[in-house]
């Protein structure tokens, strides 16, 4: 059932039926609404549209630019292969330095092993060969202590006396 709202309100008793709203509205508000809505719809707001860029361009610039660009790309195309730059030289120098440090470190750190190797080689050399070498090169003929002692013509008393004199006897060091 459709009932008129006013009838309904009147039916509520002494309630006043007013159509006007009690709120205040700024002066000229409705005069400006249209502009504000248009501005909101216009993406650039109140920024003026179609304003040109004010910069100057040298005369004939765009006529000559294509030829300049073609000349430039022609030069760029001719430069093929590796381009040696200061940066690449620096990287090469750094790599070389690291290599040299690494090689030097290897040399230094490897010495004990070399010394050990040399000692191993010597231990494998025949004693007779060493004696023969010393005979020929150094003039050392007899190495065996017993051979040397047998040639000394001295008794035990002489030996003791010698030892005392040199400080190796009982009263020595």
């Amino acid at each position, binding site marked *: 059932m459709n009932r008129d709202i006013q009838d309904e309100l009147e039916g509520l008793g002494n309630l006043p039926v007013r159509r006007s709203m009690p709120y205040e509205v700024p002066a000229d508000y409705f005069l400006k609404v249209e502009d504000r809505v248009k501005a909101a719809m216009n993406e650039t*707001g*109140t920024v003026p549209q179609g304003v*040109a*860029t*004010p910069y100057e361009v040298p005369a004939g*610039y*765009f006529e000559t630019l294509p030829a300049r*660009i073609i000349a*430039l790309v022609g030069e*760029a195309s001719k430069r093929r292969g590796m381009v040696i730059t200061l940066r690449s030289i620096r990287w090469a120098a750094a790599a070389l330095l690291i290599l040299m440090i690494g090689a030097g470190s290897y040399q230094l750190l490897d010495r004990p092993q070399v010394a050990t190797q040399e000692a191993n080689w010597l231990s494998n050399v025949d004693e007779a060969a060493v004696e023969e070498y010393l005979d020929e090169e150094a003039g050392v003929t007899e190495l065996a202590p017993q051979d040397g002692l047998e040639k000394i013509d001295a008794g035990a008393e002489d030996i003791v006396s010698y030892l005392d004199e040199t400080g190796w006897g009982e009263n020595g060091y």
Partner: protein
Amino acid sequence: MAGIYDHLDDTALIMTFRKAEAREAVFTTLVRRYQERLYWHIRRMVVVHNDADDILQNVFVKVWKGLEGFREESNLYTWLYRIATNETLSWLESQKRHAAVPVDGNEAFFENKLVAQRDYDGNRIEWRLQQAIGKLPDKQRVVFNLRYYDEMPYEDMSRVLETSVGALKASYHHAVKKVEEFLKGG
């Protein structure tokens, strides 16, 4: 002087570029077709003609080197703008680093170049607008310029700047507010 490939669209130009004997003529056509748009896009960011010229040359050298391998996932137009934008932003970054520009010195950096331009007149709207735009951060300035001057659709701008459409709309909205405030401020 008209080139023999001027009638080709961008896709046909790229295909023809892959033929060695046609490369130079095709590239000349491409340069003539896009030089002004790219030049102004760069110039609005860097202000000085000679700087824009340097950057534009670098852009076209990169295009020359990359065009043969260009795959049409994006169209040529957005690809060119992307190279130009990246070269320009890199150049600006480098310039500010060398000039030891402080973080909050971006505005003065741009303003100084602007007032040095011949025929500069701070009372005319076109110079005032440039002053206002110069106060924006670099990336926001790119967004404003692409939308305001080039009227680039947001979808294309998204491919150029590799940013979402929503973010670009928000960025442009903020940029417009800042420009408005500056222009009203007098």
